């Protein structure tokens, strides 16, 4: 028994395909979800036009977090850019550090030492775990299950403790810099990490029982927010969002970077492409990342060089060139397009966050005909972080 809304009042389409919404008719209501709203992910907003309790049009508004990184980086030297890039994505900052460092290394002709690459991979996977844990809490919260986020935030905090002892900071680690990484693993790190991983696994099994095997959650997420397979390319969908629809795309496999070729894993695929499948893909991805962290700690060399020889950072110039570096973050493809012009400053940096396409064009398309109550759930299920949209 599916809900059949009364669509007799719906607006007609105009010749150019847009909707003919006459606010004066009294049939429609404008509803702002965000920026100050509990049902929005971060500081952004969606301007909904509703008819009854169904959305007829949704327009994403971003820019509340715009700091102009791409401009600021143009007036910072290559080393000075390194601390600022992580701010582009708060919940998972490390991909910025990695992509930026890798782009600079490629254009400057530097190769990071192997040991540093192992540590980088470790940090990236830890970051993915964190991001997924945040997602789980958010997804459950968007459907009214507050307790899940209480659990996942706690275990995420344990992971932040590991980050803190490894990198010296909780959120903005500033640890991966062009040329290598800052420091080696602290004494006894692997063991404490193992304890944290066990805690995460046990929490995730609780989450599985209470969220994924929950009639309420299933009822609200199965079959809702389906991304058709033919939308994947048109809207540039990547990451778990694409894999939930059976598109086997994982940058870690397709264009392996760092030490991923030496790790044993397979991209996790789904079929149905709805909110539930995406949530489940992310849960499995999280567990896969837990496994990858274990693999990394088991396989990584005991010790090695941390930094490649880099030019003196005070006068570092990079010859003219351009490149694009991508990595598979928890939300999809994270990329840095870097252009250099032979000076000591980047000519242009463009950050391609996965949320850019997911939260703008895709969300606006998916939100139509959705129940107002499901808007938050859909938005979370696309796993978007506003700061990487507007940078």
């Amino acid at each position, binding site marked *: 028994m599916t809900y059949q809304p009364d669509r007799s009042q719906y607006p007609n389409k105009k010749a150019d395909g847009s909707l003919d919404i006459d*606010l*004066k*008719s*009294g049939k429609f209501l*404008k509803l702002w979800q965000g*920026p*100050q*709203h*509990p049902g929005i992910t*971060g*500081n952004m907003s969606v301007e909904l036009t509703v008819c009854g309790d169904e959305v007829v049009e949704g327009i994403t508004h971003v*820019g*509340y*977090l*715009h*700091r*102009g990184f791409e*401009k*600021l980086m143009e*007036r910072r030297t290559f080393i000075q850019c390194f*601390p*600022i890039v992580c*701010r582009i994505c*708060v*919940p998972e900052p490390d991909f910025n550090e990695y992509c930026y460092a890798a782009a600079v290394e490629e254009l400057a002709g530097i190769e990071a030492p192997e040991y540093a690459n192992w540590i980088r991979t470790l940090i990236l996977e830890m970051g993915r775990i964190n991001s997924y844990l*945040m997602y789980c*809490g958010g997804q459950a919260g968007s459907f009214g299950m507050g307790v899940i*986020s*209480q659990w996942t*935030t*706690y275990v*995420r*905090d344990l992971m*932040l403790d590991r980050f803190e002892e490894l990198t010296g900071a*909780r*959120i*903005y680690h500033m640890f991966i810099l062009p040329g290598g990484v800052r420091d080696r693993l602290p004494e006894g790190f692997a063991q404490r990490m193992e304890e944290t991983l066990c805690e995460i696994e046990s929490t995730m099994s609780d989450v599985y029982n209470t969220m994924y095997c929950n009639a309420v959650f299933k009822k609200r997420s199965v079959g809702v927010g389906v991304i058709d397979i033919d939308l994947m390319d048109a809207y540039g969908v990547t990451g778990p969002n694409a894999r939930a629809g059976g598109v086997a795309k994982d940058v870690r496999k397709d264009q392996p970077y760092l030490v991923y070729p030496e790790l044993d894993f397979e991209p996790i695929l789904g079929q149905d492409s709805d909110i539930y499948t995406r949530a489940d893909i992310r849960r499995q991805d999280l567990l896969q990342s837990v496994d990858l962290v274990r693999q990394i700690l088991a396989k990584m060399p005991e010790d090695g060089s941390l930094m490649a020889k880099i030019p003196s950072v005070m006068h570092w110039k990079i010859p003219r060139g351009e490149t694009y570096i991508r990595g598979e973050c928890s939300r999809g493809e994270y990329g840095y397009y870097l252009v250099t012009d032979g000076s000591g400053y980047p000519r242009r940096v463009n950050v391609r966050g996965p949320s850019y396409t997911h939260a703008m064009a895709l969300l606006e398309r998916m939100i139509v005909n959705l129940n107002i109550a499901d808007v938050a759930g859909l938005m979370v299920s696309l796993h978007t972080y506003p*700061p990487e949209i507007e940078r």
Partner: protein
Amino acid sequence: MKEELEKRIIKGPDGLEFEVEPLRDYYCEAPPTVMPAAYSKIVEDLFNWARSESIWILGFGTGCGAIEMRPLMTPRFDAYRFGVQWRPTPRQSNLFVISGYLSVKTLKRVIRSYEQMQNPKYVVGLGSCTINGGMYWDSYNTIKRLDQYLPVDLYIAGCMPRPEALLQGFADLKKLIRSGKAEGANEYAEKFEWYKANQKKVINDWDMPDYNW
């Protein structure tokens, strides 16, 4: 002006037509006034004690610092035991935590949210960005000094401050409130013209009344 702010005639479900003028109907034009302290010091102290023990934060993550709010709301740091909790609407909140940098676009929303909060209300600035621009000191889109636009009671150093530092901040704020020094709302009312002038200097498309609550 945006279409939805224009004056218009609306036909209600019962068939009656009525005029809507959003800028007049949805907002109040009265400027804020200074709230005098209670007549007796003992009563005022009692009020302040009560205020200090019920810090209700507006759930508006204006910048990166918002990410450290969630650990505070959850069992590990559990700010609730200190009388701190989060509310979804400004009407129920008395503390606005400005979590870091404010883009001009957000500043506009922050001002609206702040003005909608009930007196007495407090503002805490998180991190370098609220003090002197932080790492966005040369950005064209972020304000540099929060105290030019809102009265700030406390600043917490860090980029971003950890949950423990925030708890320290709440503890200090409580002391401030108890001692009767957290008079931001009154200061805002007193220097209302100055604050408005500063706000309007950076917000170019000011399409709302000066005071909206």
